[in-house]
Structure formats: structure tokens, C-alpha cells
């Protein structure tokens, strides 16, 4: 491939947001190149191969799923903006999910891609709250959640104006936080609205082959539009001159010039790229303010349903009646988490995944993982794999066979793994707590996209790339 040393736009990172920005820019004739340090695309939503199997990272389910014909939602917007046909993502809908609280998950709210299911469970379990709940839903529907200049408001304060029962409030916040909150305890109301729509009013779906289907479509679009991409080619520094970026310097020392730089590296991470001399990754001060997660993956020799686990797609569990979304006081937080069965999407009659998959995600404390020696790290992973498994199993019916007998393979990733492969400080899945909605940085022609711009989740990430490419480059005619 022809490689140039000047581009209209350089994009840092080949995750969902960088790829989406790249497609927009290349489609409209910009000469654009995406630089990615890792050897695989996807960033926080990638996949990896291990022992002959492909594992998704990040994606439990694509949120924001709506059926064909429903317009004006984020999924439709992004398909239009990227000129992607709906069928290309081959999305299959979830079967059903639930939020369960209590030592054995006794109190549960079910939800599916039909909002009436959640509404009726709220009416049944919290009869005195249903009117407030309906008013909250009306408020969510009318809220302008895509404004790039909205004033931040506490979601707990707003929701508290509609609902009185703290248990119901926490049950609603639990999945929204797990799937898209970078801040502990509370969310910004705009973000709450985005997530409420994404999970409850819209819904979950997944391509049968997982996240790589979506990545494949994005790569194909980007290539067709004429975009360039250089893998295993990290950006070590953004070079500046008199308050403007001149371009980037690669890990190899190669210098590339560009009119604009769009960075999906993160806000603090991008600031470090703007420092006069390259800063080693290890020199990062650890604030511990970013939230990260650990995830266990268990490959089973049969469908989860055949173990008596039913057809749950996603289960958000919490052993208490109050929910704590915060940096845990141990390596992982055993009190709550998310179970995902990729098998339990509706892939069509008779279509099954080749193996059963059980994924469990819990909050994790980066600082307690990063300081471990290699031996201690391996030991911690083994111990916490068991702890997470044990914790999650409390919220499922007892398996018909002992798990050890039906398990074919296991794997686990930690905040340390996430940081290593994505470069996001502290393994932050949803970025820093403070977002920069308009994507501006201290340098006028350097912009953020991705988690620290603040549209989260897979659909959010793509919309982030699209919005920033539109707002900062395309709409200026530049």
C-alpha cells in the first residue's frame, strides 16, 4: 500500500470511534489514515484468538437495537451516516434479560426488547411507583440527549423527583451504570437518558459471530471509501507548533504531518501525547478514579439452557438491595456483576452457537491488579476467576451437571489486560469520569472521539467518531 507522510486527518486508534470517524472523512474525500498500536482493530470492543477460539472483548450485546422501520434512533442514524445497510450487521435479538437484587436475586425485574415487559414488572413489584416510573419514561423520551453543550445535571437528583423507592431506583441504575457509566455512584442525567433508551426503550442484539462482524463491515466500508490504516504503528507524540498540531510522530520515529488530528486515546492520554517529549506509559500517575472491570469467560460443552439455566441473555445481579457502583475495596467487587450468555440470542430456528459461553463481569480495582508480580498476578486471576464464578452462580438455578465436568476452557481479563492492549489508562472501559462532549482539546486542531468524548457503548462509540468528524472537520468545509 502507498504510504504518505501528509494527511488531511490523522486518527489515533482503530476502535469503533476511530473507524467510524475515518469512514465519514474518507467518504467525503479527505485523505485520512488511522494509526493503531495494536495488531488488531476494535480497541475496547475487539476480539482475540486463543487456543483456536475467538473471544469477544467488551461486547456482551449491542445496545440500541430497534426493529427495521423504527426511525430517528441512534442505530438508524449511524447506519445512515456510515452508508451501511442494516442487514450487514446481521443482528439477532436477545431472548430476555433481568435485573435481580437480593442474596439469591429474589427481587427481579425482567426486560426484553419489548418495553412493556419491564413496565409490567415494575407495576407488579413496585405498584406504588408505577405512575412515577411512567412519568420518568416520558421525561426520558422528550430529553435532548445528543446536545454537545448540555449542562451536567445529577441523574440521581432528577430520578429522585419521579421515584421514591430507593431499591427501584438502584435496580434501574444498575444496568445503566454497568453498560455505560464512567463515574461512581451517580451519572450525568444526559448519560442516564442515553443509556435508558439504549437498554430499555430500545434493546439488545448481537451478530451470531460476535463483534467481529461489525468490525469487518466497518473495515470494508473504510477501505472502499479510500481510507488508509497502519497497524502496529503507534503514535508516540502529537507534534505542535505555535498552538497548532503539525502532525504526529510514530513509535518508529517516523514523522507524519496532518491538518487535523482526531484522537480516540482518551483525554489524559491525548494530553500526554501533546507533551514536548514522549512520556513512558509507566510514568502515568495512577489516580484510581477510573472504573475498570474484570471478566471471566467459561466455554461449556453444551448450551447454557441444557444446564438448566434457562434462556436469560443478560443478568445484572446484586446481592443486596442497595447497589454500589464504585471502585471496589478489593481486587474485584463480588457483590454485584453481569452475567452474559451469548447463546441466548435468537439466531433463528435450529441455529446455535457451537459451544456454550458463560461470561461474568465485575467491577475491579486497577491499582490492586497493576502492582502484582507475574506470579502473584497469575494466582490472583485463578482465585478471582473462582470468586466471580461463585458469586454469579448464586443468581442462576443450580446447574444440572457440576461446572467442572462441562467446562472446556476458561479465560479471564483484568484491568491490566485492558490497559495493555488498548492504552487506556488504568484499564478504563468507559474513560475518565469527566467527559468532553464537544471533543475540544487545548490544541485547536486536535479533537477527541471515543470514551472521553462521552458517547458510550458500541453504538455510542461509532456515533462519537461520526459526530466529531462532522463537527470539527466536515461541517467546516475544511
Amino acid at each position, binding site marked *: 500500500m502507498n504510504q504518505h507522510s501528509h494527511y488531511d486527518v490523522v486518527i489515533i486508534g482503530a476502535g469503533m470511534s476511530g473507524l467510524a470517524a475515518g469512514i465519514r472523512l474518507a467518504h467525503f*474525500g479527505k485523505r485520512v489514515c488511522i494509526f493503531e498500536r495494536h495488531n488488531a482493530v476494535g480497541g475496547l470492543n475487539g476480539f482475540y484468538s486463543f487456543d483456536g477460539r475467538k473471544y469477544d472483548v467488551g461486547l456482551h450485546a449491542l445496545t440500541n437495537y430497534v426493529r427495521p422501520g423504527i426511525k430517528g434512533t441512534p442505530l*438508524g*442514524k449511524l447506519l*445512515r451516516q456510515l*452508508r451501511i445497510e442494516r442487514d450487514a450487521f446481521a443482528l439477532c435479538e436477545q431472548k430476555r434479560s433481568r435485573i435481580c437484587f437480593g442474596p439469591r436475586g429474589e427481587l427481579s425485574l425482567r426486560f426484553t426488547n419489548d418495553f412493556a415487559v419491564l413496565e409490567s414488572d415494575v407495576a407488579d413489584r413496585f405498584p406504588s411507583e408505577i405512575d412515577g416510573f411512567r412519568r420518568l419514561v416520558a421525561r426520558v423520551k422528550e430529553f435532548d440527549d445528543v446536545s454537545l453543550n448540555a449542562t451536567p445535571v445529577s441523574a440521581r437528583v432528577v430520578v429522585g423527583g419521579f421515584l421514591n423507592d430507593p431499591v427501584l431506583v438502584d435496580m434501574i441504575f444498575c444496568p445503566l451504570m454497568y453498560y455505560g457509566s464512567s463515574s461512581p455512584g451517580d451519572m450525568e442525567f444526559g448519560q442516564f437518558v442515553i443509556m435508558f433508551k439504549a437498554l430499555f426503550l430500545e434493546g439488545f442484539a448481537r451478530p451470531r459471530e460476535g463483534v467481529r462482524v461489525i468490525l469487518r463491515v466497518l473495515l470494508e466500508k473504510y477501505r472502499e471509501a479510500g481510507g488508509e490504516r497502519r497497524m502496529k504503528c503507534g503514535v508516540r507524540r502529537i507534534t505542535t507548533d505555535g498552538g497548532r498540531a503539525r502532525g504526529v510522530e510514530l513509535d518508529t520515529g517516523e514523522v507524519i504531518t496532518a491538518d487535523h488530528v482526531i484522537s480516540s486515546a482518551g483525554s489524559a492520554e491525548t494530553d500526554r501525547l501533546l507533551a514536548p517529549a514522549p512520556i513512558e506509559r509507566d510514568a502515568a500517575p495512577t489516580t484510581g478514579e477510573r472504573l475498570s472491570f474484570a471478566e471471566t469467560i467459561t466455554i461449556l460443552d453444551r448450551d447454557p439452557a441444557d444446564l438448566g439455566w434457562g434462556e436469560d441473555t443478560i443478568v445484572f445481579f446484586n446481592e443486596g438491595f442497595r447497589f454500589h457502583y464504585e471502585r471496589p475495596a478489593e481486587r474485584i467487587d463480588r457483590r454485584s456483576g453481569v452475567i452474559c450468555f451469548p447463546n441466548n440470542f435468537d439466531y433463528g430456528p435450529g441455529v446455535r452457537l457451537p459451544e456454550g459461553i458463560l461470561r461474568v463481569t465485575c467491577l475491579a480495582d486497577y491499582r490492586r491488579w497493576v502492582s502484582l508480580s507475574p506470579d502473584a498476578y497469575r494466582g490472583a486471576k485463578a482465585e478471582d476467576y473462582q470468586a466471580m464464578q461463585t458469586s454469579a452462580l448464586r443468581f442462576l438455578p443450580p446447574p444440572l451437571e457440576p461446572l467442572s465436568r462441562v467446562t472446556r476452557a476458561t479465560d479471564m481479563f483484568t484491568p491490566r489486560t485492558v490497559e495493555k492492549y488498548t492504552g487506556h489508562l488504568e484499564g478504563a472501559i468507559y474513560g475518565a469520569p469527566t467527559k468532553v462532549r464537544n471533543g475540544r482539546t487545548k490544541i485547536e486542531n486536535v479533537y477527541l472521539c471515543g470514551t472521553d468524548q462521552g458517547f458510550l457503548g458500541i453504538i455510542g462509540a461509532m456515533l462519537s467518531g461520526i459526530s466529531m468528524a*462532522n463537527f470539527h472537520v466536515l*461541517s467546516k468545509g475544511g
Partner: protein
Amino acid sequence: MTKDEVKQVVLDIIADIAPDEDLSNLKPDVRLRDQMQLDSMDFLDIVMELRKRHGIEVPEADYIQLATLDSCGEYLTPKFNALTSKG
């Protein structure tokens, strides 16, 4: 180019941007966004496709001129013809 040809150019662009919209019964004198789900991102795309495909520039202050198919015809036809005459 005639105004009708220019309107067809705009319709072709909308068909590509919003393949999920039914364009068969659009009223030429009613605002496009009142007949279809078109948001500001879609309007930006109409403008950018006009530039990409036909070299037509629409300054931001003139976006309002693209409100209906009729107004698109009125506003864009002289621009198309100016381009053709320049050859």
C-alpha cells in the same frame, strides 16, 4: 439543467442517505423534515453529497433554502447551470 432534474438529483442523494425512507409520495412544497425523519446530520449530508458529487457549494447560511424540494430546485438550479456554463 431544469428544476425538475435538479430536484431528481436531490432525491437521488436522499435515497442514498436515507434508504429506509419512502420517497414516492413526497410533496414538493412541504418541508422535507416534516415528511421524513431527517435530522441536522442528514441535512449536512445532503450538502456534502452535493459538493462531492456535483461540486456545488452551499454555505451554512443558505441551508434553509433546502427545506423543500421546490426550494431546492429554485436555489440549486442556477448553481448547477453556472457550473455547466463554466464548462
